[in-house]
Every structure is written in C-alpha cells, then in structure tokens.
C-alpha cells in the first residue's frame, strides 16, 4: 500500500434545514440540522462526490484530525485520504452525522426549540429511508445531484442500498460492505438485549434523563460490551486475549481478572462517556426496522429492480453478526434483478469490525473498484 496520506486538519460544518420532514413514523420534524465534514474538492461538473454513511456508533468525522494533537484520526482514516482507496485527490468525500445522532446533528440530546429542553423521549424514531431523505437534502444544499459513489459498512451499507431504491438516478455506484438486506431474529435479539440494558437502567428516566442531570451509564456500558462481543470473531478474540489474566493468577472474586473483561469494560466505559443512550436506542431500532423488501411483498429482487447503480458488495469470512450469507442474499437479488454487481468475500479474522480494518485484500479491492469509478467520471 502506497501514498497513504492524511487529509490533515478538518473542520466540521453544519447544514440547517427549515423545510419540515415527514418521517416514516408519521412524525413531522419542522426543522433540524446535520453536521458534516468534506474532504477533497468538488469538481466543476459536481460529478466526483462520494457520500460515506456511518454505522451504529459512527459520525461525520470520517478522516483527518481537528488539531495536530488529536490522538485519534477520523473513524475511516485508513480508507479516506490522498492516495488512499477513497482518494481525496480525485473525489469530494462527505461524511455526516445522521439525524438522531449525538455528535452535532439534531437528535434526542438536542434542544427542542419548541420547549427549550432536550427532545429526550419525544424525539421520533428514524428509519434508514428517513436518513436517506435527509442525506439527499444535504446533497441538494451542496449542489450535488448524482453521487459517484455512496459507501457504507454495516448500518451504513443499508443506507447505501436504500439510496439505490429511493433515489436510483442519484447513485452511480453503491458499495455495500459487511451489511445485510434486513436483520435476522438473532440480530434483533442482540439489539433488544442492548436496549433493555439501557431502558431498565434506573438513570434512564423514560428517556428524559437530561432533566435529571444524569445518564444511564450502566445500561449504555452493558449495551456496548454486548455489541463489542458480536463485532469480534471467536478466533480473533481468542488470538488477542485468550485466557490471559491481568495479574497472572486467579483472585477468586468478581473484579477484572481476564484481559477480555478488562478490554470490554474499558470499551464500555469509554463509550458511555461520550455516546447518548437515546441515540443508541434509536440507531438499533433503525437497524431492526430496515427491510427495503417490505413494501415489495418481501421480494428484495423486486425492490432492487429500479436501481440504476452498479454495486460492489463485500463481506468478511469471520463476520457472524452480518455474515457473508447475508451479503450473498443482496448479491443474489441484484443478479436476479439483472443489475451489475461484483462481490468479494474477504478472508479475515476481525469479525464484523473487519470493515474498519486494514486487511490488504480488502483495501486492494476497494482501491481497484474506486479506480474504476474515478475513471468513469474522469476524476
């Protein structure tokens, strides 16, 4: 891998929308804002834009740093930058925080102008198709009609897929990574356990914990710990932690003993420090509800028939949360609908998290595909 430069220092921007949006739930949100970042330069034809859709706990800070001293770069910095597969020398890349998020876009923790208090429990549920609608409005504001590509992993892949159905003409290429056409019962079950952890936390206060100056930290922490287990593979976890003990011997108690416990608790603590519990609930429901075939008698092929985009579908062998079999369902529906699709099943031990990792075959295929996209638009 060569030329892996950074986009450098970046600044988030805010787009304000005063046209009401009617959400799938029936609720109308009169106004809202979306926070986003861009990298690279939009060309004169406005044909080189790429939209990055984030997953469950993601946000708009995809690449680069806010200041030189930031410890961590954006969440997909290994994929986005000059000379990287999503090459900011060629593409104009947009990352946003979805509606309902907790990183600056309007969400449950934002102040409701009507009451002067955080929305809390009054914030409506948002579906993937609602996100696509708001993303399209952001694109309108930025003067972008047709995206060169829309790319997402996991829940982000669902948004990319939904785009090709909601706005077929506005997507040249959809890259759907480690995703699924809908969740299985097992997947919904995991989400519900996570939600129950939050909902039953005494500090949850029916979702209006902001007024009580507290957060359901324990619930959110448990939800994140559970999530993390499902994002890793058994092999990967075994390789990294095995049965390693922190002190080298059994302590006969319930404190942290095994390294895996330490890791999960650390991840849970870190997450509960910055993520909003209501947003977590909302995002998991968006996952559960996602089923673009629902309005086509459950026939995904029929749903995708109107798509114009070309597709790259990628899965990872050790991903059991969104297994390769689920990606193959998407591929089969696309083939049956006579769409153009390529499919790669990447050998990886990183489980679901592999879509964020730097496995060489994964990086190579993304680079190869995006080279084609760039060539198509002369970028």
């Amino acid at each position, binding site marked *: 891998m060569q030329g892996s430069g950074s986009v450098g220092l970046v600044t988030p921007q805010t787009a304000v929308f005063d046209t009401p949006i009617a959400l799938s739930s029936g609720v109308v949100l009169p106004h809202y804002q979306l926070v986003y970042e861009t990298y690279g330069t939009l060309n004169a034809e406005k044909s080189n834009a790429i939209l990055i859709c984030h997953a469950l706990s993601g946000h708009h800070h995809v690449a680069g740093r806010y200041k030189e001293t930031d410890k961590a770069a954006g969440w997909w910095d290994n994929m986005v930058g000059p000379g990287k597969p999503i090459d900011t020398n060629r593409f104009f890349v947009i990352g946003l925080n979805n509606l309902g998020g907790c990183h600056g876009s309007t969400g449950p923790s934002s102040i409701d102008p009507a009451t002067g208090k955080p929305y809390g429990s009054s914030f409506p549920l948002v579906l993937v198709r609602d996100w696509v609608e708001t993303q399209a409005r952001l694109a309108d504001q930025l003067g972008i009609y047709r995206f060169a590509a829309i790319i997402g992993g996991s829940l982000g892949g669902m948004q990319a897929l939904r785009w090709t159905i909601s706005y077929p003409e506005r997507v040249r290429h959809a890259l759907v990574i480690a995703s699924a056409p809908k969740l299985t019962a097992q997947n919904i079950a995991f989400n519900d356990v996570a939600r129950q952890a939050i909902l039953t936390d005494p500090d949850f206060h029916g979702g209006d914990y902001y007024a009580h100056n507290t957060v359901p930290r324990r619930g959110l922490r448990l939800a994140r710990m559970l999530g993390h287990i499902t994002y890793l593979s058994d092999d990967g976890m075994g390789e990294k932690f095995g049965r390693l003990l922190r002190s080298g011997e059994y302590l006969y108690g319930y404190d942290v003993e095994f390294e895996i416990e330490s890791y999960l608790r650390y991840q849970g603590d870190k997450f509960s420090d910055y993520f909003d519990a209501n947003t977590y609930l909302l995002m998991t429901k968006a996952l559960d509800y996602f089923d673009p075939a629902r309005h086509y008698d459950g026939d995904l092929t029929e749903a995708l028939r109107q798509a114009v985009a070309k597709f790259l579908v990628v899965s990872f062998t050790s991903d059991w949360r969104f297994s390769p079999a689920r990606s193959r369902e998407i591929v*089969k529906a696309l083939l049956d609908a006579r769409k153009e699709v390529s*499919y*790669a099943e990447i050998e990886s031990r990183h489980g679901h998290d592999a879509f964020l990792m730097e496995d060489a075959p994964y990086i190579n295929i993304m680079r190869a595909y995006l080279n084609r996209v760039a060539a198509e638009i002369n970028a």
Partner: protein
Amino acid sequence: MSAVHSHSSHSQHKDLRADLRNVADWIPADSNVLDLGCADGALLHWLATNKRVRGYGVEIDVDGVTACVQHGVNVIQSDLESGLGTFEDGSFDFVVLSLTIQAMHNIENILNEMLRVGRTGIVTFPNFGFWENRWQLALGRMPVSETIPYEWYNTPNIHLCTVYDFGRLLNKLGMHATGQVVMHQNARIHVLPNLRGSLALMRFEKN
C-alpha cells in the same frame, strides 16, 4: 474475426490464452456470458470490449477478483464446488469453464448446473489422451506435459479425462456436443485429435 480497435491492453485477441481465443470465437456478439473460474477476467474483458458481451465471472481467488474489478469485469467471489445457486435458471446464453474442470470434485453437478443457468456450455480441459501422456504411461510414469505440468504428488488435477471420455459423460447427462476444437501448441488438430491434441474445447447443449 475482424479487428476491433481498443485502447485497452487486455483487448488484443492474440493476448488471450490459446483456448480462450477459440472460446471467444464461439461466442457471438451481444451474448450473455458466465465465465466460471474466470481468473483475472481476461476473456470477459475481451468479449465486452470487442463483442459487446455482458457477463459475469466467478472466481474463488481474491487476487483474481481484484484483477477483474480492476478490468471492470463483474465478478462474484465464490467456490464453484458449492454450485451456481446464486444464478437463476436460464440467465445466460453461454457458460464457460476453462481449464478448471479437471481440478473439480463434482463434475456431473457442475455440468448440470452450467446448463441450468445457461443454454450452451463451453468446457476446456487438458486431453489426457494426448500421445505424450500415453507414451509416458507406457514407460511406467505419470505423465507430465505442457497442459498437465504437475507431478503426481503435487497436482491439483483429480479428474483428468480424454476427449472421448468427455463426450461419453455428456451423453450420460443427456447432453451433446455442438462443437469441438482440439489443439496442440496453439495449432488446431484435425486428424486423430484424441491422440495428437493436448487441449480440448467442447461446446455442448441439452438434448
């Protein structure tokens, strides 16, 4: 075939492997083609560039898949041994399996699958009946030749056959050959092909 201009390095007929050149000659313009074990997608790329052929490749190796993507060839990463379940009945005009069948486990299944998803099948394989192979066997050794370049202990080939054998299997499966080309070192062999040819191409359909 008339020369067609193209800027791509991959589109020269002469750059195609010898068996693929003949396969390409069998496929008319504007066909739908499925290429099983398509490697870097050279055949499909050539067909797309020169004959407006639309198609898909199937390849198990990720480097091959990446090369296909690089060439703009649609490719599905999959193991042929698990069948062609991803593809609907009758989705293709031609289904190609080149120099792969000899390394596969379930030959009958793949041939049936080929004619389930496509109208015409094309298989290319090393001809075990080639005289050099027969001669080496006569001398008491397992054959190693241009089209079967492995020693017995490291060969991936588990189902070698002769031109004659392949025809018999087609009959058994209710299929028949609609075309046959036998070659040796890029030249077509017309006389005693099962003895003098090292590489066979068979085109076949259901009875």
